[in-house]
């Protein structure tokens, strides 16, 4: 029994580190790890995973806010839309064909991932003039080069629309917010990948917390198992956030593209009805 818990702890450390690194929360690893390898009932696995996602966000966000990578204002702005979409949009999304949505989402994800691959070596667009009404100007110190990089978060209204849809879809398809947050910020808004992954990590906790309340109220969280997972994630996410400073930007992009590919594959499997 202790050996099993040690395995779960070690896996959670890895999930936390990876989740904090690419801004996706780690659920991609935690849920299959618990349900497939350790035979945990899937709803319980999801409930525990949600706590893991909050833990990734809590640990990672503290480090990323301290280092200046996470843009809190940008994250909160998008969170308003995502959270609102999660409440209201879920009813609309429920009227649509889940399989078709999965297929569509997979295609969009692949296209976005290709775009990220194409642009991963490119520096962010130069900030010129004053920011328009909803645009957000900020800067961060790139740790691999030491240079201060200014950036402008653009296309905010479109990004808010995407976030509403993402919030609505996440409840229907059980997808994590990070897989939408990161490309929304990086590809659509022109935010550097390091800021996008860090800000996404900051955002995840709030949305996961609302879902976790539901699972807890239904008794679908094994609290002792959650203790093991969350402790592991706390360790991993703290390490992952610090490790991210040594990871070059193009590698961060490539890692995210890998995650997007796995998500797209899952969505295609769902579309195929397997």
């Amino acid at each position: 029994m202790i050996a099993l818990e040690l395995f779960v702890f070690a896996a959670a450390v890895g999930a936390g580190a990876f989740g904090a690194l690419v801004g996706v929360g780690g659920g991609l690893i935690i849920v299959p790890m618990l349900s497939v390898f350790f035979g945990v009932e899937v709803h319980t696995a999801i409930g525990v995973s949600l706590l893991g996602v909050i833990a990734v966000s809590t640990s990672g966000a503290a480090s990323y806010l301290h280092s200046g990578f996470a843009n809190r204002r940008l994250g909160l702005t998008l969170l308003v839309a995502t959270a609102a979409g999660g409440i209201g949009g879920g009813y609309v999304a429920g009227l649509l064909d889940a399989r078709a949505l999965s297929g569509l989402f997979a295609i969009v994800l692949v296209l976005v991932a290709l775009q990220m691959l194409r642009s991963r070596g490119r520096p962010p667009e130069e900030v010129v003039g004053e920011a328009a009404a909803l645009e957000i100007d900020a800067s961060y110190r790139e740790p691999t080069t030491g240079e201060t990089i200014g950036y402008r978060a653009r296309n905010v209204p479109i990004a808010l629309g995407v976030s509403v849809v993402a919030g609505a879809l996440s409840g229907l398809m059980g997808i994590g917010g990070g897989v939408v947050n990161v490309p929304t910020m990086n590809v659509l808004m022109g935010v550097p990948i390091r800021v996008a992954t860090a800000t996404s990590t900051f955002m995840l906790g709030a949305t996961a917390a609302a879902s976790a309340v539901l699972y807890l109220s239904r008794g679908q969280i094994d609290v002792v198992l959650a203790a093991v997972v969350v402790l592991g994630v706390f360790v991993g996410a703290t390490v992952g956030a610090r490790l991210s400073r040594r990871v070059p930007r193009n590698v961060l992009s490539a890692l995210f593209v890998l995650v997007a590919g796995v998500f797209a594959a899952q969505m295609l499997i769902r579309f195929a009805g397997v």
Partner: protein
Amino acid sequence: MREPVRWTILALRAGQLTAAAFFGVALVAQLLIQPELSMSAATIGVLLVIATPAASLLATIAESWRSDRATVVAAILVLGVLLVASGIALLIGR
């Protein structure tokens, strides 16, 4: 000028550390075959984990109140939406 984040970081770290402490007690209690203590400590840890994002939003509101009203408004909206979502989730869950 960089946005103030000290209190937000403090709230996140405090939530993390106190939850970790209760989870540690839970696991030690489990090893000592004290299932009731283990469950109680783990449950408190879970509640702390869930409450930490809300606590960090409150900290953000407090520390940004004078300097960044846009962030304050966004944080209040997020907190409000999350409270509504949690309320709906609890109602549906029953």
